[in-house]
């Protein structure tokens, strides 16, 4: 019979932020906390004011300009530039395909409390898109 442990809060005993889990194949052990996604975001930007559809660890989204946004985190990362991200977009009705990249022209670039991102179309122009998504992994403060 499967055993199920029901608990609201799980913490490391030796260190509150470090719990070890075994890999699926049993060949390795890893830190659970290091691997958890720490921030994700799905928003629509091809409207007057960009609107967050759903998110994790995002407090707000600022519209910096066409195809440029600042994502503000609810809980800070532990160090600037020392976390990883990935992004994608789905093209809007009149748009070409596009991708998400960091934005050096924004007011912050992978800071602990947020980051500026840009959406660039395949013709190298900035664009607002119907669906923009972003995923961040790394260590929180």
């Amino acid at each position, binding site marked *: 019979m499967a*055993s199920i*442990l*029901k*608990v*609201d*809060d*799980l*913490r*490391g*005993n*030796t260190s*509150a932020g*470090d*719990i*070890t*889990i*075994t*890999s*699926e*194949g*049993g*060949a*390795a*052990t*890893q*830190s*659970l906390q*290091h*691997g*958890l*996604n720490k921030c994700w975001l799905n928003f629509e930007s091809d409207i007057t004011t960009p609107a967050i559809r759903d998110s994790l660890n995002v407090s707000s989204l600022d519209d910096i300009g066409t195809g*440029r946004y600042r994502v503000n985190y609810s809980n800070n990362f532990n*160090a600037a*530039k*020392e*976390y*990883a*991200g*990935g*992004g*994608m977009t789905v093209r809007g009705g009149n748009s070409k395909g596009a*991708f*998400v*990249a*960091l*934005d*050096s*022209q924004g007011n912050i*670039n*992978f800071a602990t409390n947020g980051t500026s991102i*840009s959406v*660039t179309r*395949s*013709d*190298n122009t*900035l664009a607002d898109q119907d669906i923009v998504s*972003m*995923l961040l*992994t*790394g260590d929180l403060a």
Partner: protein
Amino acid sequence: MTSVLNVDSIAAKDGTSPVELTKQSAAKAWINFEASTPATRDSFNHSAITDNGTGNFTLNFSSAFASADRSSTTCSGYRTTAIAYEMCTKNTPTTTAQEVWLYYSLNGSVNDTPGDNMMTSQGDLA
């Protein structure tokens, strides 16, 4: 009342098998690196980067994946006033490494310019 469980390691009830995270999944590797050296800023389950040439790197894993059919998402470089850079995965993943290319998005030329390059990988480990 909130229940708190303090524990150092979690395993299935047989003591060795992996525990199931109900309706959740954790990333198994991530890396943030700058391309010109190249140098890793921070990472999880990644070992040293292999520099294959301009704009071409092999990102090696410390613990191998069970299959090469994992999901790896990338985000690269930055958008300056005029141009943007992308990083894409090469279609030859192995269980122990992922080769990537950095290129200028407008004409596809490879380069080592982007200072911020990231990849996150999801799937089962060996």
